[in-house]
């Protein structure tokens, strides 16, 4: 991926993750309503705690993406997180948006994987 397009996607997704984390902190009980009942029953901890944990995870992913540190790790965790979100929230009117964010996150993950970085270094030499 070209450097500029990669960075635009990285910063854009970082802002999305950070903002969602903040919105979850604002109203955690409202976000808990997005979970399917079967998923809530599977939780080993109270729903409110799980949702706040999700907010912290979202903010951590956002910070790593924004500051360009450990991007591939953040992208892997972010992609897995989005897959879990798609599974536990079921098909709704906003599912298509999550698919778009997941696609962007996968693109970042593939481009930032250490294997790719290694290839780039060889190319430079």
């Amino acid at each position, binding site marked *: 991926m070209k*450097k500029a397009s990669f*960075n635009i996607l990285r*910063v854009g997704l*970082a*802002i999305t993750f*950070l*903002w969602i984390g*903040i*919105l979850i*902190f*604002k109203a955690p009980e409202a976000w808990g309503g997005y979970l399917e009942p079967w998923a809530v029953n599977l939780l080993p901890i109270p729903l409110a705690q799980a949702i706040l944990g999700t907010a912290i995870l979202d903010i951590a992913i956002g910070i790593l993406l*924004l*500051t*360009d540190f450990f991007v591939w790790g953040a992208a892997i965790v972010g992609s897995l997180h989005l897959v879990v979100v798609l599974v536990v929230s079921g098909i709704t009117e906003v599912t298509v948006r999550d698919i778009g964010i997941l696609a962007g996150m996968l693109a970042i993950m593939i481009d930032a994987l250490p294997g790719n970085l290694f290839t780039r270094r060889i190319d430079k030499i």
Partner: protein
Amino acid sequence: MCTLRFAAPKILSKQHSFIIFLKNMTVFALLFTLSAIGISETVYLIRKRIALEKPICLIGEDCLTVLTSKYNKIFFVHNDILGLLCYIIISLVAAFLVIEVRPMWLWIISIKVLVGIASIVSLFFTYLQWKIIKAWCFWCLMSATTLWVIGVIILLSAII
């Protein structure tokens, strides 16, 4: 009739508070987005400076002239670090305002004061580039523009 008379203001009041909520959320979202962009810019500049690498200059070739000039510090602290701190505070304040962390008045005053001072300092740095250094730095101008836009948003939100 009485019921209608009393019911109507209630509905209007609900609508009005919803409009205010939407307006505030839009302002906070814009402030947060712009400050996040500022954080990514300044982190990029700090990393390039520490790695002793030349930053990519998207417009012109004078970025390094400005970034390595004698004006790149205020009280022994690099401007990029001050910029990063400023953007981090703005984003945190925007987040606190969204989550409604009290005391709200303190966050509102602090963001106004901080953005006011930062905008004036940015104006001074732009003048330095134009008249004293006689070179333009893309990243410095982008950071200044980001701060000015944040300032305009805060001003407009107070007026509208």
